[in-house]
């Protein structure tokens, strides 16, 4: 079981990711944008963060960069789950410090397998 922070501005997406992760026994917290996620992540420690890219207030790439700049998240897996599939966006994510990039439509099994892999 891992403590996971799931970030997406879409309530439908948060629900789908939440059900998938809790169903697999993980402890899930949710945030609706990057700014809210950063605030939560600073108060509490998570084993993994999964974030959307396009969100109000703070986008997912900025969130990844901000988290990587904090000592407590330097080695925490940060996954991106987005509709963005271009090489350019992926490279921005990689440069910001993302661990992996998952393209929507959302696939529960693939997400769980990826999480298992990066958590080792």
């Amino acid at each position, binding site marked *: 079981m891992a403590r996971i922070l799931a970030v997406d501005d879409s309530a439908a*997406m948060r629900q789908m990711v939440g059900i998938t992760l809790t169903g697999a026994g993980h402890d899930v917290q949710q945030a609706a944008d990057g700014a809210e996620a950063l605030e939560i992540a600073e108060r509490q420690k998570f084993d993994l963060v999964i974030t959307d890219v396009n969100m109000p207030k703070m986008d997912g790439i900025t969130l990844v960069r901000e988290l990587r700049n904090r000592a407590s998240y330097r080695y925490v897996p940060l996954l991106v789950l987005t509709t963005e599939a271009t090489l350019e966006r992926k490279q921005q994510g990689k440069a910001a410090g993302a*661990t*992996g990039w998952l*393209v*929507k439509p959302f*696939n529960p099994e693939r997400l769980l397998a990826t999480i298992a892999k990066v958590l080792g």
Partner: protein
Amino acid sequence: MPSSARPFTGASELAGLAPVAQDASQLPPALPGFESFQRFWDRDNGCWMVKILPGEYYVSRSEEAISTVLGSCISACVRDPTRGIGGMNHFMLPQDATQGPNDWLDPAIGLATRYGSYAMENLINDLLKLGAVRERLEIKLFGGGRILAAMTDVGGRNIEFIRNYMTLEGYRVAAEDLGGTQPRKVVYFPASGRARLRKLRPVENRIISHHEQLYLDSLGKQAAGGEVELFD
């Protein structure tokens, strides 16, 4: 040709503009990512028009129209009135129950809901990226007809999805025309938010249904999920 003999060409004439033939040099610029859509001058509406097919969506900030024909599929017409940008999608839910262990019709997480949410998010994300504000979005919904007397009411399921989605996301429906037994032709003007709707004769059902089936067949693999890449 004397002006009295000119054929009526729609809105441009009503607006007092000369009904001159429009050439491609007058096409409003297409937004990045939408350059491949073919646009044509629509005489009935006196404007440039783009037709979208099942599975496609189109976004514009110009005075042009987006048109599509719906059987059991759904189109969401979405715009930010303040920003003057809007777009339309055209989607239906995949029906392959073999894709994944979750019940594909589970309203919260089944394959159908996952793909429907994806279709909506694609359109809405593009609008947000162009400066639209989520709270301002004006959404009109069309389609979901029961156009063939099949065992399952595909259109009804599509309607159920979009209603759940709208509620969950906290969106208000500005206008809708959903259900029924006739196919529809929708013409949407993103600049003004106006939508023109025409019910088609059931005789066209078979053709529309055939096109929707082709789309469904191509959907299976795509709906199952996008790729995963782990960085070094």
